[in-house]
């Protein structure tokens, strides 16, 4: 089984549209949405939720006010400004480190498991699809990503491919998404920000020893930037496996909950997606 993770650096470059399109095209696969902050695949892909599991990936401190002697030792030791001067814990700021527990002289503080989010296991036309939703402002989004990927791997049996939709950025969530991938496909766009963010995320994937491939979306928006992306990829020995033109009809298809694969007006985009997949397979043989 080969695991391909789609990331972008910059948000909104068309990563989820590409993954949803491939989900319609590729057979004998499993799918995971690792963009737990803003998961979108489940909106486009008709599925049936089989199981919804709460996931507790973080802890949070609680003060028993009946025991608290207001010595303020917890307040003094907290490096996250999560304890106020009147000894109340702000759950959105608490990282669950437990430092306050260690200094409390009357054992008034305890750590409790905190809901990080929910993991969903779904049936996508007979194939496995896992996704998740982070609880608002929660800690531990990286752990939730790891959980979504763990869940789908437990279900996988004879599938040829696992497609993972990653998240924008380069931080903990992205690092958790790309771990264990056979290749990362970076979906970028022909804009200055797209290029700048591509470089950063490509270097992160490279650091973790994961092969990267690039798809340039909206490549005809700015031919100059496309040329610079191509030059950069060449210098890094990264293959460009797809080039998709700027096409306003894609947005209109999405508005009707359709991927480009299901819209007759988007035959040319469909062909690009198919060719991207063929190139991905060739490059990862």
């Amino acid at each position, binding site marked *: 089984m080969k695991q391909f993770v789609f990331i972008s650096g910059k948000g909104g470059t068309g990563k989820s549209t590409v993954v949803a399109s491939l989900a319609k095209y590729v057979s004998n696969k499993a799918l995971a949405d690792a963009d737990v902050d803003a998961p979108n695949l489940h909106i486009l892909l008709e599925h049936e939720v089989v199981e919804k599991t709460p996931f507790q990936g973080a802890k949070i401190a609680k003060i028993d006010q009946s025991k608290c002697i207001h010595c303020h030792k917890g307040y003094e030791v907290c490096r996250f400004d999560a304890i106020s001067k009147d000894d109340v814990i702000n759950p959105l700021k608490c990282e669950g480190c437990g430092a306050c527990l*260690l200094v409390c002289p009357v054992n008034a503080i305890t750590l409790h498991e905190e809901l990080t989010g929910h993991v969903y296991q779904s049936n996508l036309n007979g194939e496995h699809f896992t996704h998740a939703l982070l609880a608002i402002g929660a800690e531990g989004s990286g752990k939730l990503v790891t959980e979504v990927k763990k869940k789908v791997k437990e279900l996988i049996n004879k599938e040829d491919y696992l497609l993972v939709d990653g998240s924008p950025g380069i*931080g903990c969530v992205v690092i958790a998404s790309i771990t264990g991938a056979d290749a990362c496909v970076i979906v970028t766009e022909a804009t200055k920000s797209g290029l700048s963010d591509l470089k950063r995320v490509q270097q992160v994937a490279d650091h973790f020893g994961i092969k990267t491939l690039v798809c340039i979306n909206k490549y005809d928006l700015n031919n100059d930037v496309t040329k610079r992306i191509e030059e950069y990829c060449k210098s890094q020995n990264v293959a460009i496996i797809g080039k998709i033109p700027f096409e306003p009809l894609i947005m209109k298809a999405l508005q009707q909950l359709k991927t480009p694969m299901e819209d007759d007006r988007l035959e040319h985009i469909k062909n690009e997606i198919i060719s991207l997949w063929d190139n991905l397979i060739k490059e990862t043989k």
Partner: protein
Amino acid sequence: MKIAVLSGKGGTGKTTISASLAYSLRNSQYVDCDVEEPNGNIFLKASLTEREVVTVLNPVVNDDLCTGCGACQQACQFNAIVVINKKVMIFDNICHSCGACKIACPTGAISEVPREIGVIESNSSNTFMQGKLNLNEPLTVPVILQLKRKMNKHGNVIIDSAPGASCTVVSTIEDSDYCVLVTEPTPFGLHDLKIAIDLVKQLKLPFGVVINKAMDSDKSIQSFCKKENIDVLMELPYSKEIAQNYSKGILPVQYSKHYKDEFIKLLATIKERII
């Protein structure tokens, strides 16, 4: 006034909106808190002459004092410390710099040393500031908190947040006076807007919505906002012209008088809402 610009979904135009606001508001300070991928300066083109590193404290063990008791491993909630054969191994990347291990150590064998995880860059007049997370570092929050400590305490500040709704966004927006939620008219945009709304509501922050790439073929955001009684502050149309200029690092307010007026109107609307 401190205005934070955020979006659940990435790529909806958060940077376009925040940089345009900063460009249109005289004497304002623009602060790029999207520290994983800061892009504001592609548009605002400030000359970044000032540089300050962001460090976190990581524990180090004095082997002469360490007895290998494992109290530090037990205290660490992030699995950043492992004690094997009475030898302590510390994984700096996942350390949250909370200091619990140092408190827990019975022999005083743990001390802390600073480690660089990012940088804060600004121009000499301090009207532009950005945080940048070093590559291969997972934790964004320390960079954001340091940015916020350096942010102007008075006057107008425009904050560009990271996408999403995690702890990163919470630390970025929590003490702002107003939040601008940027979205786009797709089912993705609407879905992620709802997540962003839940977040600002939980933080009890006043907010309004800007619809970027607005199209007549999808009015779902407008109808949702109307139903929920949410302010739509502005609509920026879907346009190849805006996208092409964006690709070159040019904001709508930098090439069009019409859009400049629109953003001045937007600022006036926000000011009204704050008062």
